[in-house]
């Protein structure tokens, strides 16, 4: 990682091996090596590139090995587009091998199974895979006919299930076969899909499934035109005219998925919807004669077998398969949202990625993102495919790998070339920063970036370094949730690379107020790094200027001080006694005695809620006793559970004191406090609303709390917990064949969950709106007394606005899942689905496994 101070390539490999070889089981290493040829029969030669074969063939004294057809066709198909053969020859060879063995049913089935799976899992290869069927048509028209039929069947299944990504990819493979179809081919289907869009949009003006369908239509056109040729230009134009209105429209939720704050005066990148961009790009491309330069092309050749004197024959044409769009349309297992286009590198002075007006921008992005998301189960393979990006597109689209960005256009004359590493990083960040959420857990994208840096450090690291600097520069105007995702990724990433970063670049920001978003980011990043490591280690990785942010208190390898050890602390004697009693597992009566003493004294001092000081003492004692580790504190909480629950039920201020005491004890390690509070939520000692009231009420401090990333973490975790409980209820409700009695009961829970979620969001909004408007009590007082300067006041207000947008979005996303309308739509769909007996898989899909991508559960069963 040149930019992140990573040493050359061999270093990275060395590091990986060191870790891997050490374990007693060297499994993962083996997997990595086998990644692309695990299908191979052990008898077959390993999948190697052509040049190796040549080397091996030189000494001719060995008996030539004749590879059986099945493993050979498997290997060649799986490795398509990765050899040094011309893609056209490669596809023809595979097609011929298939044609020669077409009577072998096992081979045929295996071939098409891989054929389909490649389309779904390795989108880069779709044009190449389709080419096998395309050339196969001339060798044996059954090849194309079978391929078309199987793809169409699978596409229908995907359509029925609302698996839009798979449907799009399968449709693309059909589009690549456009010249083999009678009449309009795929264009007839695109028009049919558009009719569905019209129906959806006229039934519901904020419909989002229609938007997804338009995206699929627009992304299919380029592939159909490249293979179909100029005779279809008019049809494409017709479709483009009809999609314009939908593509240009904004649905309400789009106001909340922008990457940068709406209030920012100057945004690094304006909001564009993905389909809006696609529409513009395709219109531009129409003016350029529909060139689609980046898509690889396959031309029909005269079969070699044909004698020179015979004229080329017309290909056998096929009827385009009939696909039917189910009614009602199944929106799929996860809620669909419109997409914002995100880029770190687009529009810079030196263009390293396609301009957003260029269709290559969307075509490449779409294929890269799909490769990433479809293969999440093997990040090592994804990293390899991404590094090999230039193998799968037209020659000359990309600069030589690893070319430095400012030397990108040297030596290429007027030809425009892109930097593949920038495009890869751009695509991964587009997912890391996708709102409301990407397809997979965020940590997947973290681990993929780590993998890329390990696979090709010298090429990837400079792009990554530029990405980090770009985001850091714009962090003040970035959506709050995205800023926190960046924080989480950045620190996790550094933890994989010895915490090396050029912190010296950011020294000047240390002099800003802690309220400044960049300074707040630095403070939070150091805390997060320490959580994954330890303070003394992190201090060694940053320049001296940062050391005051990692005070010595963080080092001590002992528990934080117990405040009651200091006799000056009110109730010191009772606090100490409580601690001793609790440690020695004294009886509840003895504890009661001590607590009563605190109550009496507190009452004497005129404290209104005497439970507050006694709870403080009790919780602090639990924290002290459990300070050794999370397990210890959990054990202590378990022991004090009944008392804590009853306190929390009796008094609101005392229940908020539970949160306050945990935070106070762990003030130097907020991460520990956040974990403990999360567990208290699980024990139902704390209610979600209590945590919010403490964090955005007692602790708000005129809005300064909004700058602390751990407060965001606390509030965000709490909201996530509430919404995941609600999703569990929904999963139960959406089971088939519930008894009426069960339905009533679940509906009751659902209504309750819905109401409390709405109330929670409202209380968050009320609190942060006050800060955003400058009306919050603490803020007004602080500004009035001069404790908060005018400049600080503005910073705090901006934080308030960012909080507001982030949680407004969360609220709307929640509404789209648990709102009455959303539930009713799901129930209608459930009713419309076929009987569970006739469709055994349907039942399975409605269970909690419904959101499992790529059939994870299924795969485990397959040895």
């Amino acid at each position, binding site marked *: 990682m040149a930019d992140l101070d990573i040493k050359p390539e061999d270093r990275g490999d060395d590091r990986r091996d060191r870790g891997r070889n*050490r374990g007693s089981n060297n499994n993962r290493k083996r997997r990595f090596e086998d990644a692309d040829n695990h299908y191979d029969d052990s008898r077959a030669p390993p999948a190697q590139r052509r040049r190796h074969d040549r080397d091996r063939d030189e000494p001719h004294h060995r008996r030539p090995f004749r590879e059986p057809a099945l493993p050979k066709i498997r290997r060649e198909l799986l490795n398509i587009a990765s050899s040094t053969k011309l893609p056209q020859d490669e596809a023809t060879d595979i097609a011929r091998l298939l044609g020669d063995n077409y009577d072998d049913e096992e081979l045929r*089935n295996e071939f098409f199974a891989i054929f389909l799976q490649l389309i779904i899992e390795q989108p880069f290869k779709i044009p190449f895979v389709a080419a096998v069927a395309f050339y196969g048509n001339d060798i044996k028209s059954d090849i194309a006919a079978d391929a078309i039929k199987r793809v169409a069947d699978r596409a229908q299944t995907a359509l029925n299930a609302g698996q839009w990504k798979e449907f799009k990819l399968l449709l693309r493979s059909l589009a690549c076969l456009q010249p083999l179809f009678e009449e309009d081919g795929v264009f007839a289907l695109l028009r049919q899909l558009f009719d569905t869009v019209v129906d959806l949009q006229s039934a519901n003006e904020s419909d989002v499934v229609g938007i997804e369908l338009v995206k699929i239509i627009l992304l299919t056109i380029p592939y159909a035109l490249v293979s179909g040729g100029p005779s279809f230009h008019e049809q494409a134009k017709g479709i483009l005219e009809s999609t314009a209105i939908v593509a240009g429209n904004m649905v309400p939720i789009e106001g909340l998925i922008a990457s940068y704050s709406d209030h920012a005066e100057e945004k690094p990148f304006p909001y564009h919807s993905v389909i809006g961009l696609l529409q513009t790009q395709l219109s531009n491309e129409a003016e350029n004669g529909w060139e689609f330069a980046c898509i690889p092309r396959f031309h029909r050749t005269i079969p070699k077998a044909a004698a020179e004197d015979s004229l080329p024959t017309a290909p056998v044409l096929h009827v385009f398969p009939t696909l039917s769009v189910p009614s009602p349309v199944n929106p799929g297992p996860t809620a669909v949202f419109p997409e914002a286009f995100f880029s770190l590198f687009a529009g810079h002075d030196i263009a390293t990625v396609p301009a957003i007006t260029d269709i290559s921008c969307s075509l490449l992005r779409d294929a890269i993102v799909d490769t990433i998301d479809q293969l999440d189960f093997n990040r090592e393979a994804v990293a390899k495919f991404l590094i090999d990006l230039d193998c799968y597109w037209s020659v000359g689209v990309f600069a030589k790998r690893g070319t430095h960005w400012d030397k990108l256009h040297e030596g290429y004359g007027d030809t425009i070339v892109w930097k593949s590493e920038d495009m890869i990083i751009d695509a991964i960040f587009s997912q890391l920063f996708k709102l409301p959420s990407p397809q997979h857990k965020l940590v997947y994208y973290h681990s993929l970036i780590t993998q890329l840096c390990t696979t090709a450090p010298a090429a990837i690291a400079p792009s990554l370094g530029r990405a980090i600097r770009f985001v850091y520069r714009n962090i003040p105007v970035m959506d709050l949730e995205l800023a926190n995702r960046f924080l989480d990724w950045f620190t996790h990433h550094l933890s994989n690379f010895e915490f090396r970063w050029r912190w010296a670049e950011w020294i000047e920001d240390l002099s800003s107020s802690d309220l400044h978003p960049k300074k707040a980011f630095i403070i939070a990043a150091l805390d997060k790094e320490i959580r994954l490591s330890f303070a003394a280690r992190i201090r060694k990785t940053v320049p001296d200027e940062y050391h005051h942010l990692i005070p010595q208190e963080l080092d001590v390898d002992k528990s934080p001080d117990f405040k009651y050890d200091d006799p000056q602390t009110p109730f010191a004697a009772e606090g100490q006694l409580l601690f001793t009693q609790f440690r020695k597992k004294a009886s509840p009566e003895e504890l009661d005695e001590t607590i009563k003493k605190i109550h009496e004294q507190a009452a004497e001092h005129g404290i209104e809620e005497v439970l507050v000081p006694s709870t403080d003492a009790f919780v602090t004692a639990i924290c002290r006793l459990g300070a050794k*580790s*999370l397990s210890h504190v959990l054990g202590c909480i378990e022991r004090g559970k009944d008392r804590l629950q009853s306190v929390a039920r009796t008094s609101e201020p005392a229940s908020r004191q539970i949160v306050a005491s945990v935070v106070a004890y762990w003030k130097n390690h907020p991460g520990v406090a956040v974990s403990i509070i999360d567990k208290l939520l699980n024990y139902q000692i704390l209610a979600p609303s209590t945590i919010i009231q403490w964090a955005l009420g007692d602790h708000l401090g005129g809005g300064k709390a909004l700058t602390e990333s751990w407060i965001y973490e606390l509030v965000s975790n709490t909201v996530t917990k509430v919404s995941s409980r609600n999703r569990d209820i929904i999963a139960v409700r959406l089971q088939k064949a519930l008894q009426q009695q069960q339905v009533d009961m679940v509906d009751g829970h659902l209504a309750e969950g819905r109401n409390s979620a709405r109330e929670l969001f409202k209380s968050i909004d009320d609190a942060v709106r006050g800060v955003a408007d400058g009306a919050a009590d603490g803020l007004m007082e602080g500004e009035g007394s001069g404790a908060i300067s005018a400049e600080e006041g503005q910073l705090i207000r901006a934080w308030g606005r960012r909080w507001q947008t982030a949680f407004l979005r969360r609220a709307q996303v929640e509404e789209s899942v648990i709102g009455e309308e959303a539930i009713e739509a799901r129930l209608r769909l459930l009713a419309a689905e076929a009987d569970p007996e006739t469709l055994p898989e349907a039942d399975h899909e409605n269970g909690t496994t419904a959101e499992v991508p790529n059939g994870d*559960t299924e795969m485990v069963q397959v040895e």
Partner: protein
Amino acid sequence: MPSVRSTVDRLDKPSSYAASKKRRRGGGRERDEDDGRQQRSISPTDKLKEATTLYVGNLSFYTTEEQIHELFSKCGEIKRLVMGLDRFQKTPCGFCFVEYYTHQDALDCMKYIGGTKLDERVIRTDLDEGFAEGRQYGRGKSGGQVRDEYRTEYDPGRGGFGRALNDDYGPADERY
């Protein structure tokens, strides 16, 4: 439809641990290579079908619960975390069990966290049939994991040289 195989290998498959162990057991002399793990009864693959627990190996002895929590909760909420301990000293000995609430979280952890670093060491994850009392202890002769008994390379994160070797050459601390 026949079972669909992926075009590339999956990182969320259980390791060959269960299968190899079964073979070994059938093959006569029985010797446990891995620590903190007990023999499995019938059909290990079936048991792992719904597994929510992971065995995590190659940790440093100094890695804390909090650090593990911080990393592993990126894949989902952690239900339980059991540190692997030296049988005699009751100190961490370089492995742990992480239990999630759902099978999917455990699979995701295999895919996204297995093979990445924690505390600057590449860690190993494996699906596990579930923690049982007693499995938190190392089963090496001296109380730690078997792999730390005879290790010949120096590993400061795991107590220096192998324990058996330390006995011969004196404790690692005195030499370095």
